[in-house]
């Protein structure tokens, strides 16, 4: 049994990448009311592309410790490219339609991306060969934490702060919050909703791909990771509350730490515990900790 601090740090690390994906999920749901099942697929894409980028970077003879720069860059770039394509190409056709149809469309995207990944990268797991350890480990309060993990946690915190800033202090953020509150607001205020939708969806996608990119130095990429992640992301959203950024943060922390605890204490019950908690939260407080609105 690992020390509690190790578990905690590991949990926070999981939570960081989970937060990014969940935040992407939340912002898209908040504005467009689309629950994007494909957020996990974007995460997976980010991971796969991340591996390619890291490997080429190292093979290209560049200084290895700098791998994190192109990694983040790739994660961002990928999202900026895919986001608008998926939004304009598919998602925009189902705005205003029944929520269940929107869900099904995102499911279709999941299926397609699954095979795109298979086509490009095959089905065997891939890793970066432990490149994250290049930063070494740190001894913090008696726990040994890979420095890379800390970097990722820091990145997520920065992004969380950025998101908070955008939401609270910029015009774009105000628009997001207004439309999340009342859908017709945006149009009523004469704002070009089309651009808003594209931007928001792209933001959500970028968060997803970035999350995937950041996680791969520390884990292996497997072809099912996108499909598995959605359930965790859903757990985060349920616990934190659908549509709430604060909820994504707290929910991610909760799920990340829970996952970590479960892995080291009762590995058999890892996912089981999470699902049970999801169901329990849904029964006791369906809006989650910070969510609002009808369920």
């Amino acid at each position, binding site marked *: 049994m690992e020390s509690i601090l190790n578990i905690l740090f590991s949990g926070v690390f999981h939570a960081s990448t989970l937060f990014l994906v969940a935040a992407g999920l939340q912002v898209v749901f908040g504005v467009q009311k689309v*629950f994007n099942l494909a957020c996990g697929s974007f995460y997976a894409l980010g991971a796969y592309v991340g591996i390619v980028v890291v490997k080429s970077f190292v093979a290209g003879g560049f200084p290895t410790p700098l791998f994190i720069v192109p990694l983040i860059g790739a994660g961002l770039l990928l999202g900026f490219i895919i986001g608008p394509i998926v939004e304009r190409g598919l998602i925009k056709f189902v705005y205003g339609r029944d929520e269940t149809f929107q869900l099904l469309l995102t499911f279709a995207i*999941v299926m397609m*991306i699954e095979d*795109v990944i298979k086509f490009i990268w095959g089905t065997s797991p891939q890793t970066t060969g432990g490149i994250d350890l290049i930063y070494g480990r740190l001894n913090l309060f008696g726990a040994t934490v890979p420095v890379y993990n800390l970097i990722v946690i820091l990145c997520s915190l920065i992004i969380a702060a950025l998101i908070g800033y955008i939401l609270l202090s910029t015009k774009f953020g105000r628009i997001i919050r207004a439309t999340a509150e009342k859908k017709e607001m945006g149009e009523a205020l004469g704002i070009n909703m089309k651009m808003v939708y594209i931007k928001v969806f792209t933001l959500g996608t970028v968060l997803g791909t970035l999350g995937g990119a950041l996680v791969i130095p520390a884990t292996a990429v497997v072809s099912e990771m996108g499909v598995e992640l959605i359930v965790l992301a859903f757990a985060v959203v349920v616990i934190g509350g659908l549509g709430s950024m604060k909820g994504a943060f707290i929910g991610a922390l909760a799920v990340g730490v829970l996952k970590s605890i479960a892995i080291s204490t009762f590995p058999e019950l890892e*996912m*089981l515990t999470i699902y049970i908690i*999801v169901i329990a939260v849904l029964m006791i407080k369906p809006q989650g900790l910070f969510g609002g609105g009808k369920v």
Partner: protein
Amino acid sequence: MMSLKSTKAFILIVIGLLLLGFPLVASQYVSYLMLTFFAYAIMVLGLNLLFGYTGLLSFGHAFFMAVGAYTAAFLTGKFSILCMEVIIVIAVIISSALAALIGLVCVRYIKIYFAMLTLAFGMLFYSFLLKFYYLTGGDEGMRVLQPHLLGFNLSEIPKMQFLTGNYYFYCFFIFVLLVFVMWKIVSSPFGLCLKAIRDNPEKAEYLGINVKRYRWYAFIISGAYAAIGGVLLGSAIGHVDPGLTYWTHSGTLVFMTLLGGFGNFFGPLIGGAVYIFLQDKVMSLTTYWRFIFGAILAFLVIVAPGGIAGVISSLVKKEKSIE
């Protein structure tokens, strides 16, 4: 010119006869595929009651199918209960009980939350099946031994012949029976209330319909249907594994329902048949069938949400207005 009603009846009888005579003309492989069709058709009939008629999209329908399938595996493998009828009845009892419990939780929610809750339950079962591998065989699954049909032990017959012969007809008759029962349900006052709940739950409430309770009933019936489908499928394949309850398998069931046309009685049956045979065809051409099917689903959602049945009925309407 025959009336619409007798045309429909005529078509049904012809299809029924075709299905009955299928094994005599088609190859063993195709007949085997038809077996899976019967099983899936029963499952989507149940899903359609929930989704098409009551308006609740479940992403965990495969859960009940897996319950049925694993029941068959347990009963035949661990308890040596080989009587098919008993297996089916027990599977229905177990899945109905589970549906009643899970339904109590789920029907309080609608739309996305309902979909995701059912997804969560399905995945809960998945992890359960994986983790308790000493009980369930883990990701290798369990075998389903060949059951006795109507009391007859037919294990001397070669497997493929059994499947495409005796078992085929058995499944066919169960299928027809269940279609008939579902038809009764859907055209009953209960069915009308379900449709009302789908169209406008608030108004239904005002007309004295206990919306939550009726959704619960629909949930239980759909679960029972899925379980029967699971028993038939498991017995046909001879093997069950946790993948049966993975959420994407539930997604497949929804896909089939949508493909054929949800809310339409025969839609899902058409959808099931098309999906199974199309998948078989596409899989033989490329391993990237998921991409193609994903694209089909996207197309369906965006352009033709009424599915195949929707397209057919709008064509029929066009013809009628031309006349």
